[in-house]
């Protein structure tokens, strides 16, 4: 399948075209299901002025936290950013801008971006600071806020398995924001644990069809655990 072989062999190729001041959407929840190698590559590329859309901003020294070390992120769109001392420092000093977005609204904004829906009404945030300056409207006696969708120049996604055509399967809760990110990037790059041949993934159970995926790279993952909690 010549035209559908999305596999690239190195990170240079994977992130070709990603430059300063772009908007990058990154899958993951905390450190779970993040494209570790692609984030690492963004660090070594030294690109700056990034707007990152991701539910969280990593921790000191891992995940998107790596990009904070050299102040590569200009603006963060996220729902929760409290795991990171460097983040706090740059936020308070004004070096970093944050647009806090409720988690469900963030997920839906990403889905809407990929789905060609520019805006939708949600009950989330009505009557709170999140709704300030936004249009509100009543439906069936309840108040809703109009929220606009999000897209990105690049979407960086972590999946479990891909076939060479970019069909994806995620694993357990490492799915999280990855499927929506995959649909919302002008260029979508997926880092996976395993690449298989077309036909090896059950068509009935593909989470993300290859139509959304531009590049696939096989990564190696540390999968750092943020909160190790064990049964006593």
């Amino acid at each position: 399948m010549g035209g559908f072989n999305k596999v690239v062999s190195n990170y240079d190729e994977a992130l070709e075209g990603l430059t300063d001041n772009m908007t990058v959407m990154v899958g993951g929840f905390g450190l779970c299901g993040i494209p570790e190698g692609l984030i690492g590559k963004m660090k070594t590329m030294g690109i700056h002025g990034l707007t990152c859309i991701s539910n969280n901003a990593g921790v000191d020294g891992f995940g998107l936290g790596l990009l904070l070390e050299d102040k590569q992120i200009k603006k963060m769109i996220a729902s929760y950013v409290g795991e990171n001392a460097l983040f706090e420092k740059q936020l308070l000093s004004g070096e970093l801008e944050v647009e806090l977005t409720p988690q469900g609204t963030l997920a839906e904004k990403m889905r809407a971006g990929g789905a060609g829906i520019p805006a939708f009404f949600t009950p989330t945030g009505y009557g709170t600071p999140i709704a300030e300056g936004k249009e509100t409207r009543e439906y069936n006696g309840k108040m809703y806020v109009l929220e606009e969708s999000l897209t990105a120049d690049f979407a960086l996604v972590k999946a479990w398995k891909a076939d060479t055509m970019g069909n994806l399967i995620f694993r357990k809760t490492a799915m999280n924001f990855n499927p929506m990110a995959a649909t919302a990037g002008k260029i979508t790059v997926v880092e996976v644990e395993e690449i298989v041949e077309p036909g090896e993934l059950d068509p009935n159970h593909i989470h993300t069809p290859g139509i959304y995926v531009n590049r696939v790279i096989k990564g190696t993952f540390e999968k750092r655990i943020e909160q190790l909690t064990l049964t006593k």
Partner: protein
Amino acid sequence: MALTREQLAQRVAKELRDGYYVNLGIGIPTLVANYVPEGMDVMLQSENGLLGMGEFPTEETVDPDLINAGKQTVTAATGASYFSSADSFVMIRGGHVDLTVLGAFEVDQNGNIASWMIPGKLVKGMGGAMDLVASAQNIVVTMTHANKKGESKLLKECTLPLTGAGCIKKVVSDLAYLEIHDGKFHLVERAPGVSVEEIIAKTEGELVVPDHVPEMTF
């Protein structure tokens, strides 16, 4: 005596019903899972993308790909399912979750809740809390009745930025179980050994007190 964290969780657990799908927030709400009444089944929803959260794993079964919304490693219960965060909030926003339990800094007599932001302190974000309170039909807030200085957290009007407006109907505090309707708090139960006078003193919002206020049972 004011309720302990464990007792708070135990009292909240009485709001569970067999067959409920439940979202438990971080902190005391998480402990509610330990007090599901005998013979009752509930499914725990975790907003990162899991329905059917099980116990914490052992060292052998721990899996970095399986965490809850508090980023803790967990397991999956029998009959669990995984899905995207967008699909997770279809459940939440669509009102499919039967019971939501979460903490709060303040609640007021109009059902407003403030739980995510203290101006002047660092703002870490609201996570999924705003979605949860905006959409659920059945929310229980569990919190201390007053802060460490003895100042009420059950107010006429929230002073902190809101998480949601007009959405809270039930509060389990360390002193009492209260319901909110008609713009007032209604005292329903008091913690064992806590006097109605103490609850009145520590409730700034308008409080309706019936003739008889039974003690909580667990």
